[in-house]
């Protein structure tokens, strides 16, 4: 499949899944998992920084239009797009990534991928829930939300990536 078409389909699928399915997960009112970061996680490793930043902003903006929170998700996704090159650099250390196109479990191994996803999800949840509460008065609640939502988000993200992993192997 053409790479551009694949990326666009992935974007549409993730937004619809987030908005129509994952947003309705209500476990006790404190767990709000988010999965749309998969899009930023899976963007090509050697993607230039500026388009990466703008893509992050665009993704957040679309999610914001659906959720009615103009600016909230856009600010968060811009932040993770901004930090992604640094995260990849720090996690990889001396590991060479030059010949790898997309950061996936098959290419880079599960431990690397788990650390990478963990960093992005934690950063995303911290920024999102703290921005959402918008005041230090509700800090305790925001921290509780971060603590409870992060494991659920990571679990969902890994499951989704696992489900779509087999498809890719067939295509290759």
């Amino acid at each position: 499949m053409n790479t551009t078409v694949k990326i666009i389909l992935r974007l549409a699928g993730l937004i619809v899944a987030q908005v129509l399915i994952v947003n309705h997960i209500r476990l006790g009112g404190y767990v709000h998992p988010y999965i749309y970061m998969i899009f930023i996680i899976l963007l090509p490793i050697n993607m230039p920084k500026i388009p990466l930043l703008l893509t992050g902003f665009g993704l957040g903006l679309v999610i914001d239009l659906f959720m009615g929170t103009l600016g909230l998700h856009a600010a968060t996704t811009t932040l993770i797009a901004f930090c992604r090159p640094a995260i990849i650099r720090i996690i990889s250390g001396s590991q060479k990534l030059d010949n790898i196109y997309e950061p996936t479990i098959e290419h880079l191994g599960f431990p690397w991928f788990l650390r990478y996803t963990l960093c992005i999800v934690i950063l995303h949840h911290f920024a999102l829930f703290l921005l959402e509460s918008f005041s230090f008065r509700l800090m305790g609640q925001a921290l509780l939300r971060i603590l409870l939502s992060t494991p659920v988000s990571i679990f969902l993200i890994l499951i989704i990536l696992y489900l779509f992993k087999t498809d890719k192997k067939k295509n290759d």
Partner: protein
Amino acid sequence: MYNLIRFIQKHFFIILFLIIEVGCVILLASSLSFHRQVVFNLTNDAVGWVYKIGSDVGDYFRLKQTNKQLAEENARLRERLTYETDTSNKKLHVLDSNCIYRFIPAKVVNNSINQSNNYITINKGRIDGIEKDMGVISTDGIVGIVADVSNHYATIISLLHSYSVTSVRFKDNQHLANLKWKTHNFRYGTVEDIPTHLTLNKGDTVVTSSFSYIFPEDLMVGTIEEVLVSPTGDLNQAKIKFATNFSTLRWVYVIQNTNKKEIDSLTFRLPKL
């Protein structure tokens, strides 16, 4: 000048990042104002369309529950009708002449309850006569106020919103108070500004006051769950349980006040202070 351009070129990535972040925070901070209006007017139809597809699928799984709710409401209305025609015909006439409210049924296509500011999207819009600032109720109690309208959809500020303030009244003693949402739990709201001399009990009914033209008088809001006595001894608060169950909200009625133009024009004529 050359140095400045070089500096911008060198750090363009960071500068762009900071510009976007500041822009987002400004948008977020003013998210109930002009920007929101403009953007949502443009995108509400498309967003509503996606939500409608999801909601159409979900409907089939809730047919049984929806049927039950409608049957219960029918029974309640029928009961009231027989009661009011039996006891006095006068009462019905009074009801007729006071009937300045029209109810427009609508379906909830999207609803959130676990954000700090929750919005509801319904499948009726400007074409169906919905306008900004109309009240929205469910079969059980009040739900919120219309915030944005596009041609086929409308966005409602749910009671579960940090900006939501509703004038309410205690049914037993007619005292007025304000309802806000501070609990961050979709079942409970907070009633503020209660004079300390009032004795309130758990289970007392809270209804809408007659002070707004958004909601008719005496609509169910909720019941008192717990009275929170102020430590400084000025105004008490009470935690109330909403009559509406926001997590299962499917069908709502939008209330159109047919005298709104008249009321608005009167308010408009008041001298500016």
